[in-house]
C-alpha cells in the first residue's frame, strides 16, 4: 500500500543534442510504480540532463516519455511538471518568499486553493519534514539541510506521482547530508516513485530498487544494486566504482 499517488515512468530511446554535442544517445529508463531508480555516473555523463528531459524542462530531439503507459510528449508540459516533483542540487528555494510561502505558492496559484487552506496544507508538509517551526523564516536563514528539506516539502505539496532528485545532497555540508538522505529513504519506503541522480553510493546501493550507470550519454549498465555494485560487468563501471568507493 502506497501513501503516494505514485505512477510508472518510462523513457524510451531518448536522444538530445546541444549543437554538435550529443548529450543523450538513446537512453532507456523504466521506473515501475512505487520503486526508486538511482542514476549514477561521472560528471557530464548526462544524468541531470536526463531528468530535465523526463519532465520536459528540456525537450528531447527524439524518443518518448511515458507516464502510466501513456506518452506525455503531446501534453501541456506545465501540466506534466505538476505531476513530477523535482529537487535540485542548489535547493532553488525562492529567497523573496518565506518558507511556508515557498511551499504554498503552487497550491495557491496552480491548485487554486484559498490562501488559508494553501497555508494549512503547506504547514502540514513542513511538519512532515520537521520544519514547521521555521514556517515564517526566510530561506536564507536556514541551513543547507533545512533548505533542502523545505524544497522537498515544496515538491511534495503538489502531491506528485513521481519525484526527481538531482544530486540533492551534493551541495550540503557532510553533517547535513544524513537528514536529507533519511527523508528520501522515508519517501522511497513510503511507496513514492523516485528517480535519484546521486553521488551517494550508499543510498544507491541500500535504498534504490534499480541502479542505472550512465557514461557519455549512454546507459552502460543497469540492474539491481547488488548486481551492479558487487559484480560490475563493464570496465567503465568497474573504473567508476573504484574511483568513487
Amino acid at each position, binding site marked *: 500500500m502506497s501513501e503516494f499517488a505514485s505512477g510508472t515512468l518510462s523513457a524510451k530511446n531518448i536522444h538530445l543534442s546541444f549543437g554538435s554535442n550529443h548529450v543523450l544517445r538513446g537512453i532507456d529508463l523504466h521506473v515501475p510504480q512505487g520503486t526508486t531508480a538511482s542514476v549514477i555516473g561521472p560528471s557530464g555523463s548526462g544524468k541531470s540532463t536526463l531528468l*530535465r528531459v523526463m*519532465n520536459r*524542462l528540456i525537450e528531447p530531439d527524439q524518443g518518448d516519455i511515458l507516464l502510466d503507459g501513456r506518452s506525455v510528449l503531446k501534453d501541456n508540459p*506545465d*501540466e506534466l*511538471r*505538476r505531476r*513530477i*516533483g*523535482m529537487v*535540485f542540487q*542548489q535547493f*532553488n*528555494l*525562492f*529567497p*523573496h518568499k518565506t518558507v511556508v510561502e515557498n511551499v504554498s*505558492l*503552487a497550491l495557491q*496559484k*496552480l491548485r487554486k486553493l484559498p490562501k488559508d487552506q494553501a497555508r494549512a496544507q503547506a504547514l502540514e508538509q513542513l511538519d512532515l*519534514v*520537521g*520544519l514547521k517551526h521555521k514556517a515564517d*523564516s*526566510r530561506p*536564507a*536563514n*536556514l*541551513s*543547507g*539541510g*533545512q533548505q533542502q*528539506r523545505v*524544497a522537498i516539502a*515544496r*515538491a511534495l505539496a*503538489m502531491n506528485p506521482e513521481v519525484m526527481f532528485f538531482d544530486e540533492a545532497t551534493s551541495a550540503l555540508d557532510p*553533517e*547535513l547530508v*544524513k*537528514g*536529507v*538522505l*533519511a*527523508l*528520501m*529513504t*522515508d519517501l*522511497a*519506503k513510503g511507496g513514492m516513485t523516485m528517480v535519484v541522480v546521486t553521488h551517494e553510493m550508499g543510498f544507491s546501493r541500500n*535504498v534504490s530498487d534499480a541502479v542505472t550507470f550512465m557514461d557519455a550519454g549512454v546507459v552502460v549498465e543497469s540492474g539491481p544494486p547488488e548486481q551492479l555494485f558487487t559484480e560490475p560487468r563493464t570496465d567503465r563501471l568497474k573504473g567508476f566504482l573504484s574511483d568513487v568507493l
Partner: protein
Amino acid sequence: MDILKQLADTFLDWKAMGEVIPKMFAVGLPNTLVLAIISGIIGTALGMLLALMGISRNAAARWVARVYTDILRGLPPVLTILVIGFGFGPIIRELTGSTSPYPMAVAALSLMSGAYIGEIFRSGIQSVDKGQLEASRALGFGYGASMRLVVVPQGIRRVLPALVNQFIALIKESSLVFLLGLLATEREIFQIGKDAASTTGNLSPYVAAAVFYLVLTVPLTHFVNWIDRRLRNGRPEKKEPDDAAAVVGKGAQA
C-alpha cells in the same frame, strides 16, 4: 572683502530669494513633482515592458527593445524634449485643443527614462539565478507566471537602488520642460528661479531653486543607501544548528 561681498550679493540676496520662495512652493514645487512622478510611473511601466522584450525569446521583440534603448539613451535629453515637444505638440494641440506643453514634456521624459529603467530592470532580471526559473517551471508554472511570481520580483529588488537613482535623475531632468515655453501657472522650480533671476539680474533665485532640488533629491540619495545596506545585510536572524535533521527521517534508524 569686495569679492566676498560681491559673491554674497550675487548668490545670497535674501530679499530676492524671499520674493521667489512662496511662488516656488505654490507653483514650482507641485509642477516639478507632477512632472517627475507621472514620468516616473510611465517610465517604470515602459521600462518593465522593454526589459521583458529585451529578454524574450522572440527575436523581433528583442530587436525593437534594443534599437529603442540605444536611440533614447544615446540622445541628449535637451534634443529629445525639443524634438518631441515641438514635433508632436502641434498635433496634440489640434486634436485636443490643449496648449499645455506638459503632456509632451511628460511623454519625452517618460520615453527617455523608460530606456534607462528598461536597462536597469533587464540587468536585474538577468542577474537572478536561472535555477529560480527552473524550479518554478518544475513546479508546473508556465514561463509567464514564473517570471511574474518568481524571477521579476527578485530582479526588481536587486535594482531598487539603481531605480531610485533614475528617479533622482528624472527630478533634475524635469527642469528641461522650460524649453517648451510655459505659462505662468505651468512653471516649475527651475523656470521660476530663471524668471526671477533674469528680472532681478541676481542669481539668488537660482540658489533658492537649488535648495528646493536638493531637498527633493538628497533624501532620495540616502534612501538609496539605506536600501542598499538593507539588501546587502538583510534582516539579521539567528541561524539554528541543523540538529533536528537527523531525527526527522525514520530512515535514519533503518
